């Protein structure tokens, strides 16, 4: 395969595949310019001047020696700059990182530079020419391959015994099916879209601060303020994070005059205090940023904006729906409690959402 053609390249230029291959819409020009062949080889300084050659080889040796030193430095650094956060502080991590890193980096760079210099300047700079051969196997080989398949077909009766062949295909197709079922227990037995419809919230559950869990009095919520809220019984959940991922709420108080509420949701708020799911209806990031004077909530993930004064309608960004509202009221002791769970699934849209 790899014979070199060091003779005149003229013959190489003319060599072409004998088989006729369609050239498609390419234009064949009989008067095309001809390939002039390889230009004469040019010698490098290191080929011409033995002094330069010696200089270069000294340089390469120096680089390799330097690399050895750098590797040793990295080992020494491992012990000389240990990590000792409790006594010496975080600087020790940085020093350890730097010292080992510098040693390793220079050890590598010096090897790399040395080898490349060696290759470029000291190894023969001669260019070689190798012939390509069409990727396609030769006609003889291909004929032999066809014969092999023919023989195999005859000897096995693969083409003739159709029933055997087809039932085999069927069996092989059926065989992986059990494997698919084996994956059912990747998740528990429940119907996932039913789970998405419920959160920890329920009538009478107090709204408490995230993360310290203290309850919130309606009087604490001044106009313009916002609270990050979780249900008081969150820690009782089987999976706290799973429950929290659905139940987090934002609580805000607006001037009741500025609050535009839907007729059927008039009693979902308390004296200008409204609670909305914090889970973005786009793809579920927490809608964490509240702009007090515009009453806009901003999701930092893809910049969806919701207007709290206007039942959290989407005013910008890729979100598809308003944030679900949590109906709230005040209990006998003056603390804010939920009136019920959310009345729709929180978070991103999904196929069965409206069912």
């Amino acid at each position: 395969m790899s014979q070199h053609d060091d003779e005149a390249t003229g013959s190489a230029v003319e060599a072409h595949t004998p088989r006729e291959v369609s050239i498609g819409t390419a234009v064949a020009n009989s008067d095309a310019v001809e390939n002039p062949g390889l230009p004469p080889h040019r010698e490098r300084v290191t080929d011409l001047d033995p002094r330069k050659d010696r200089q270069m080889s000294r340089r390469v040796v120096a680089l390799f020696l330097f690399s050895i030193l750098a590797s040793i430095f990295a080992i020494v650094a491992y012990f000389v700059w240990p990590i000792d956060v409790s006594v010496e502080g975080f600087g020790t991590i940085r020093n350890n990182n730097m010292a080992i890193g510098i040693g390793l980096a220079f050890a590598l760079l010096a090897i790399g530079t040395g080898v490349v210099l060696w290759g470029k300047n000291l190894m023969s700079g001669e260019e070689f020419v190798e012939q390509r051969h069409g990727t396609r196997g030769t006609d003889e080989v291909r004929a032999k391959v066809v014969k092999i398949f023919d023989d195999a077909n005859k000897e096995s009766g693969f083409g003739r015994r159709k029933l055997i062949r087809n039932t085999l295909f069927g069996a092989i197709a059926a065989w992986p099916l059990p494997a698919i079922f084996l994956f059912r227990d990747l998740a528990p037995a429940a119907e996932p879209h039913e789970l998405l419809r419920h959160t920890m919230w329920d009538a009478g559950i107090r709204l408490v601060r995230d993360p310290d869990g203290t309850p919130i009095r309606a009087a604490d919520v001044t106009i313009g303020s916002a609270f990050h809220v979780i249900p008081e019984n969150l820690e009782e959940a089987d999976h706290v994070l799973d429950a929290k991922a659905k139940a987090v709420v934002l609580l805000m108080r607006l001037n009741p005059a500025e609050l535009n509420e839907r007729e059927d949701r008039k009693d979902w708020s308390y004296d200008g205090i409204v609670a909305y799911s914090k889970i973005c209806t786009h793809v579920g990031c927490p809608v964490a940023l509240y702009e007090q004077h515009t009453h806009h909530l901003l999701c930092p993930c893809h910049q969806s904006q919701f207007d709290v004064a206007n039942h959290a309608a989407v005013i910008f960004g890729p979100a598809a729906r308003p944030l679900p509202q949590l109906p709230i009221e005040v209990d006998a002791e003056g603390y804010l409690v939920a009136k019920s769970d959310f009345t729709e699934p929180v978070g991103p849209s999904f196929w069965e959402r409206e069912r």
Partner: protein
Amino acid sequence: MSTSTVTPQTRGSRFTAAAANYLDERTSISGAVKELGRKIFPDHWSFMLGEVALYSFVVILLSGTFLTFFFDPSMTEVYYDGEYMPLSGIHMSVAYHSSLDLSFEVRGGLLMRQVHHWAALLFVASIGLHMLRVFFTGAFRKPREINWVIGFVLFVLAMAEGFTGYSLPDDLLSGNGLRIIDGMLKGLPVVGVWISYFLFGGEFPGVEVIPRLYVLHIMLLPAILIVTLALHMVLLIVNKHTQFAGPGRTNENVVGVPILPHFAAKAGGFFFLVFGVIMLIATFFTINPIWNYGPYDPSPVSAGTQPDWYIGFADGALRLAPPNWDVHVFGYTLPFGILVPMIALVGLLVVVAIYPFLEAWITGDKREHHIADRPRNAPTRTAIGAAGVTFYAVMWAAASSDIMATHFMLTMEGVIHTLQALLFVGPVIAYIVTKRICLGLQKKDREIALHGFESGRIVRMPGGAYIEVHEQLDEYERWRLVSYTDYAPLMIRPNAKGRITATQRARAALSRWFFEDRIVPPTKGEIEHAKEHGHH
């Protein structure tokens, strides 16, 4: 070959000979060395991009193996009792805890984490650039279409590896990334909720996803990646490397340096350089400081955070969808705001994957192509590439829309609306401009090939007129400019039944689109003619 010529002179060479003999008698490896040892590799700086990808992958394997000795992917909840005071006593998963420990308590641990992360960023970047090189030089043409697809698969695998790895520390930032994935999955029609449910082993976030991603990240995906990479290399050897047009270089030969020793030296040295540069960056530049983000918690999030660069285009695509785009069909919900960006992303990737077959069908050229095109000599392809890059770039820029808005004091709405417009207009402009530039360059090449270049030497003629002397190119220089394949638009012809099929028509239309504007390479006759009349 007679054995008597191999007379061991020194102890070293005697040992080498004995070892080689031992090996060959048991593996017949001499055959492989004979085949491959002096194989010729052509040289061009752009051929190194694929090498960078290969070497950064090796770095990833080495540093990643180190990390597995210390990382524990469990999602069991613990309280932090490690060295980092600000997080002391905080509830977190074992995965996050062990990521902190391997950064703060293992000597060189942070360094290896940073090497791993930087190398991963470089890996995806160099694959991307390598693909662009292959695309713009037409190196995907027959016989390399299959290797293009294999390379494309590698690109997708690299991004998957990146994303799974990024999620493992279970920090706030990566947790929010997973939440976005969860939201996108849930948006898929019919199966979405189920897929998310199975992936997370229940509801989001659950306690299963990190160990599952870990298995994907360190076993399944690398195994597939390595096999695919091996295939890529084997086909590279079988097809041999393309080379740029140049004197003495033809479609039937390869001109360059042999693997042993010259190419091996250059490539081997280059591996150490790539590794060294990654090490240097990891030494001096922090990447992904998970200790600043805190453990994952579904409630907090910080503004202005960015995903790793290669996920940017997907994140940006999501940002560009218009508001309120849920569509209801028979009571089922289709969240177009999520689905349309996903379709756009998948569509872009599919076009990339099948492009070679499309172009081959249009040209109908069944020959093998081993000479890399200069991008200007395939103006339509280059323009399509530029349009694709622009499309990608706009989506990518959109992922930083908030940062652009705050840095340049623009409104969020203004930035997004501009990018939405650019997503459609940008590629068209890029296409037109690129095509013009290519044709202009081709024209200039033709000029130079025919009339030479302006030498800057002004001569006064006997009549008093001043002219600038044009110097002719030597034949080697000229060959670079004139040797390219020229295609003409397809003429519609009736088939054997005397009919013109719809496919014919489509192909002819595409062919016209591709090759209507073309600059024909100068012929011998034209050059002769120009020489004779060249003295203006």
